[in-house]
């Protein structure tokens, strides 16, 4: 029982990192109707910019990484992504997949194929033992930071005028446009927000995993699985599904490690068989 509690707590950390990646993906899809295959590449870019900033200026500078990645995302939205709105979904899949490959190639060109060492800040070295639960301070900090980002994002979407515009725009963009709101600018901001959140996940994951070009591919599949389990475009669904995937993976490692990668796909299969819209997915007139 003790080891199960410990594994579940550990799975929460993994799950929350997945949630951060998936939430950005979910918001982008909900508002723009774009399934962004390049999302994992923005996650990797976040880790790489953090590596450079920490190397040059120390850990406090890492906070700039999501800002830079959000800026890159907005630039790409204006120059490329916006041409895909209203077009066949297959086109956006192909273009964003190509974009993912391009960003990964740029990462390889700039930073090389070797992994880059990024260590946690020194003040977060050490461990926390709460009964049977054993965790490093950095993992506890990741848990806290992720929850703080998710709460801030939820508050932003629920209580601010900008959040209301985004929520309304995701349901009925034409109506929002008719109300005189500059919809293209909102789209740009939403895409940048999604990329920025992925980059936050990249910054937090950098000291846990090795910063390498392949981290993009490692992140994108769990993110898609989480969005599918939680329900496309559902913020709460992404949170619930992310935690479920994290805990399922950790517990599978305990009992059947060879199947740990496949466990989340089995979970997705079961959920989608029982509820094709995902756990908290609702009907979206735009995409029906």
């Amino acid at each position, binding site marked *: 029982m003790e080891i199960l509690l410990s594994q579940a707590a550990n799975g929460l950390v993994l799950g929350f990192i997945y949630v951060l990646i998936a939430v950005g993906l979910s918001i982008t899809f909900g508002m723009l109707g774009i399934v962004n295959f390049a999302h994992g590449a923005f996650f990797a870019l976040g880790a790489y910019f953090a590596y450079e900033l920490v190397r040059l200026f120390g850990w406090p500078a890492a906070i700039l990484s999501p800002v830079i990645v959000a800026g890159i995302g907005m630039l790409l939205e204006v120059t490329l992504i916006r041409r895909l709105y209203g077009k066949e979904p297959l086109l956006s899949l192909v273009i964003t997949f190509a974009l993912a490959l391009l960003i990964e190639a740029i990462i390889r060109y700039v930073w090389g*194929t070797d*992994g880059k*060492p990024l260590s946690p800040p020194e003040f977060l070295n050490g461990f926390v033992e709460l009964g049977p639960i054993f965790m490093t301070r950095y993992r506890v900090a990741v848990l806290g930071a992720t929850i703080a980002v998710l709460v801030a994002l939820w508050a932003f979407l629920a209580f601010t005028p900008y959040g209301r515009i985004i929520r309304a725009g995701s349901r009925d963009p034409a109506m929002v446009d008719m109300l005189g709101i500059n919809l293209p600018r909102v789209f740009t901001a939403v895409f940048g927000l999604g990329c920025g959140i992925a980059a936050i996940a990249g910054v937090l994951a950098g000291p846990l995993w090795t910063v390498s070009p*392949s981290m993009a591919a490692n992140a994108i599949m769990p993110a898609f699985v989480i969005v599918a389990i939680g329900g496309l475009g559902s913020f709460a669904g992404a949170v619930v599904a992310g935690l479920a995937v994290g805990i399922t993976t950790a517990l599978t*490692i305990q009992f059947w*490690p060879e199947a*740990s990668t496949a466990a989340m796909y089995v979970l997705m299969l079961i959920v989608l068989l029982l509820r094709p819209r995902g756990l908290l997915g609702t009907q979206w007139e735009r995409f029906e």
Partner: protein
Amino acid sequence: MTVKNTSGRWRAAGRLSALTGVLLASLSASAIAEETVRLGILTPKQGASASIGLHMARGAEIAVAMHGKKVLGKPIETIWLDEASPQVAQQNMQRMATEYKVAGVVGGNSSAATLAMMSVAEREKLPFISAGSAASEVTGTSCNRYTFRTQAPVPVQVSAIFDRLKDNKIYFFTPAYAFGQDVLRTGRAMLGNVNATEAGADEIPVNTADYSSYILKIRRAAPDAIFGALVGLDLSNFLKQWNELGMKGSVPIYEVAVSDTDFWDIGPAAATGTHVKPWYYNDDRNPAVEKEFVKAYQEAYDMPPSDKAWSGWFAMRSMLESLEKAGSTDPTKLVPAIESWRYEAGEFPYYYREWDHQLIRPALIVQVKDQISDKYDFMNVVGWSTEGEEATSTAFGTKEQIGCKMGDL
């Protein structure tokens, strides 16, 4: 009108001249292409082993440069394709044979990819030297006449380090594919030889990013030692998280078939353990030609070569010298030339054994230094898997033990 007609004729003549020029240029280009000898390099360019693949390819290129960039009196043209997965590796091996028409291929880092590439090598009669695979099947039950292998097979590498695990409670930590399963099977079979017991075993899916759940299991099992075979970024990620969770130094780690890049990627803080690998750049026993290779590599890439760079270099060197000896790119002449090739620079002559195409050369045992002050010099060489020609030859097994049934050319 006359002027117009004349200019039309001039234009027609101009076009004809241009067309003739293009034809002549393309003819001379194809003539030049025919005058080169193409050699394939097939190593990972993406995924967990991308770093290993890059170093292996660089090593092969250095071998070409050290050979004067010519073989059989013709310039060498290298083609580098990706070994991303067994399926991609097999497709690219086919392209090497049919599209690029290479004389031979070096590469093949993972055992699973190598096994996939070997079938193409046999079908297309394409000489292939695997520079990274270690699974027994490659030169064992799946061997074929066109495939050679430089790295010591799993039983040699496992037995090299298992003597150090006497009376230990061992936790096996191996990747969940052909090579890892071979290591696990071999390790379990050797437990009795050293009076060791099994504390636990995990087979890890490739490209696993988070090892914390595995580390919690190991912590609870409280083994005396961890014996593993993770490869590339998978090993880097594991060691990094092992250190992060405060486990470094608490349980010794032993790994086979590691590469220098696995440690360079995570830095000195997380590097630990005693490992088996083919070669180390800062080993006093390296012969003069290998010291030349280190120098050439450092000049070209501003860093020392990893063991996988050496493997690429060694495989390409043996391919080039065999081509010269064969006097032809004809595979029916090249394969016997590789079979009779000797590397005279080592402690004793190293060679590809004729009946299974396994390179007979001991593996190196290294230990991560307690204090690392250089960003690349992480290891102390603490021994070889075997000393001397006879002991090495014996360690690689007999015909009956290996089980290779080599086909005809």
